[in-house]
């Protein structure tokens, strides 16, 4: 390609490049100043699970073991028993968040629409034991979710802003 003498003299190519840079200086940045700024969370983001409760506070979970069965990382452990009147009791429901890969299979398989993937993701804690959560915690997560009572301030903001598509 033949070089244009004009271009060589006036550095037009450099100027072109600078104009792009300049242009970007005035556009909105695409990065977020985490942790000083909230990152957007997509609606279908799969965060820490919550388990829905009935109006009276009892869990919707029936203890069918399907989530335990389907879980690829084997992070769910359930124990059930029969109550004194022949009713089904959930003796133990444990979810090891440190093992969980947040695949969402548990949500998909649940026949009674009890377990759901939440938006919470900030899980930093001091001991590994604290990552094992039980039914009480998971139900509390649901309550928090309903009330918008998020541990995570970014989520709080997200809820204020409304869902970002």
């Amino acid at each position, binding site marked *: 390609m033949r070089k244009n003498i004009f271009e060589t003299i006036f550095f037009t190519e450099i100027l072109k490049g600078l104009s792009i840079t300049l242009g970007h200086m005035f556009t909105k940045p695409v990065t977020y100043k985490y942790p000083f700024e909230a990152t957007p969370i997509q609606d279908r983001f799969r965060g820490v699970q919550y388990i829905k409760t009935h109006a009276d506070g009892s869990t919707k979970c029936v203890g*069918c*073991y*399907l989530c335990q*069965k389907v879980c690829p990382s084997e992070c769910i452990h359930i124990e059930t*028993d029969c109550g004194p009147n*022949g009713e089904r009791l959930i003796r133990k429901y444990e979810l090891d968040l440190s093992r969980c890969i947040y695949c969402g299979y548990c949500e998909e398989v649940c026949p009674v629409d009890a377990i759901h993937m939440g938006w919470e993701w900030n899980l930093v804690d001091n001991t590994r034991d604290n990552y094992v959560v039980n039914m009480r915690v998971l139900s509390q997560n649901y309550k928090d979710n309903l009330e918008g009572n998020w541990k995570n301030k970014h989520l709080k903001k997200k809820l204020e802003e409304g869902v970002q598509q």
Partner: protein
Amino acid sequence: MLNVKINGKEVQVAPGSTILDAAKEAGVSIPVLCHDSRLNPFGACRVCLVEQVGMPKLMAACTTPVTDKMEIITESEKLARVRKTAIELLLINHPLDCPVCYKGGECGLQDLTYEVGVTKVRFDASPNDTPVDHTNPFIERDIDRCVLCGRCVRICDEVVNIQAISFLNRGTDTMIGTSFEQPWNCEYCGQCISVCPVGSLNNRVYLFKNRPWNLESEKTICGLCSCGCTVSIDYECNEVFRMNEMPEEGVNHGYMCAKGRFGFDFMNSVKRETEAQITVGGEAKKATVAEAVEYAAEKLKGLKAEEVAVVVSPRITNEEAFLASKLAETIGTKNVFSTETDEIMPEGAYSEVEASDALAVLNINVTESNPILGLAVRVAAREENANCFVFYPSETALKRVATELITGNPDELAVKMEKFCAAMGGADNDFSAMAKTMLEAEKPVVVFDPYNKADAYIAQEIKKACDKVILVPAKSKNNSVGIVDMGFGKNNPADFAKGVEGGTIKAVLCFGENILVRSGWSKLEGALAKLDLLMVTDPFMSDTAKAANVYVPVATFAEKSGSFTNLEGRVQEVSKAVDKGVSADADVIAALGKALGAELPTDVYAVRKLIEKEVKLYSGIQWDGGKVAYPSVFKTEMEKASATAKGSGKFYLYPASLRLHSGSYTRWSPDLAKVYGTPKLELNDADANEMESAEGDTVKIKGDGFAGEFVVEINKQITKGCVSLPEDFASTADIFSLGRYLKAEISK
């Protein structure tokens, strides 16, 4: 043989086989719902319909016998359509609560729904919604899920012969229920649960505890009575969730009793000890097994060999019993004891009982004491139309099938049995016709109680009179036969009591036996306390274990490998399913042996090799189901024993067998104990009315040398003037130590 073509594949089957059998032979699977190979064909579900080439009508594969040159098509558009319609129709009223259903994961209807590919039901669903019935302590009944295949009704009628349940009403109102909606009056055998394809009849012990896909199974032999049933132990993470039947497998053909099906929970009991215990000067302290063994060995070293006695329980395996006998050899003592003796050995097998054409059941409530032997008797009496003569003080469950049921108080019964025995020998009396039937039968069988010397004598005389009679001594515990073979039946159990009381025995090594609840031994409590050493191994802190200096917790039958010899003399393998973190008896014995200077192997196969070498009966035995060939039933000529009731009083007292319990072991099962936890005095309603006592009242019983208070259970089957108490309770063992038949006074 008939030639049949199934889907173009030619197979040869025996005449009388059904299309389903032929398809099985051809490797073709036909879906079934109401069919069970152990039951008579029913043909209700219409899922197994197949087409015959050249025939317009569809036929049910499970009921139609094959004919020669039949050509069957099992898959076609028409068949798929009618199968799908049938399943769709079932799903209209079936509540789709699979996630919480007991059967979810192993449900016949679920499987069929997948198989025929029902994804959408064309009809409006109207699921049933009636309350679940919890009136039966072991069986939960949810009639909503019922598909009316009738398997429970048929098994209860055709196999168990109790007929507790039946079809009620008709049309869409048809349901399974009891007559007049009464509570279930049954043996709690749970056979109905085992055949229910859906979650309509549920095992309450396993109910909601786990789901089937989590469970692993181990095929083993039930260790709760001498029947030797092949069962599967379903477990997860060292916890036993259920003891399940294995359909058609084993000598039991997949049937089980209440003990096996509902009584396994003692294995998971929190009451089980995990640590050994050494008691010095009345003060118990926890110890490791090694410490306990060392303590015991030290004590033993300070004693003369003949001052030591080894007692084993009929609950332990052949291998363990053999090791125990080796231990006794190491110590050098001949004081080896058990509750069993080698006077009577097995003869008949279940198959011989089932094929028998004349049976005599002598003074044993066989359906309660040995339920699976009871089923074999029922099969013979019902299907083979065998003549069945039952002698027992009260009416038994065999009444329905018995040709004649001879009852009476124990004294009368003894006279009647003697007369029968005499008639077998040729005497002319009331029982001559009965004896003639037995004598003329091709395969006569006599079932008797080997622990009752008077009965054993009669059985011996019958055998003498008629050699073709096959005797079936109904031993009680899972390895009652095996420990005797391993050398623990040589001595008379009474000698043990004498030795302990007389002070000639100063140390007792007791492996698994609960000495203090055995009649004959139960009064040794004071004497045992005076021993230098009483070492007890037991899964639980039993009455005897409490009195021990050294206690070592050991494994139950689900936690160890080995073999049991059942009442037929059949050796069957026991496999380890779970580990509860306690050692087996074999380990304890070997450790003790080692401390005393003998190398004893603990590996099952190594022990078996030794057994095959040293125990003549077991040389070359097939450990997985081989039958031991005993030279004769009776080791020596039995002497005539008196069967007359001892003492004086208005009532006859005799020991009753309990279907829910076998010895003291099963009482640790919370579910069985809930239904039958304390001994109950069974009383005829007329006698109860006379005494003005009702069910649940406490009455006093008093006889020569004993007295006690028991709760009354009114049982119309008990003969008037008789009462019965269960054996093997601490409070009743004392009474029956005095004799088998006693006379007593009863007052409020």
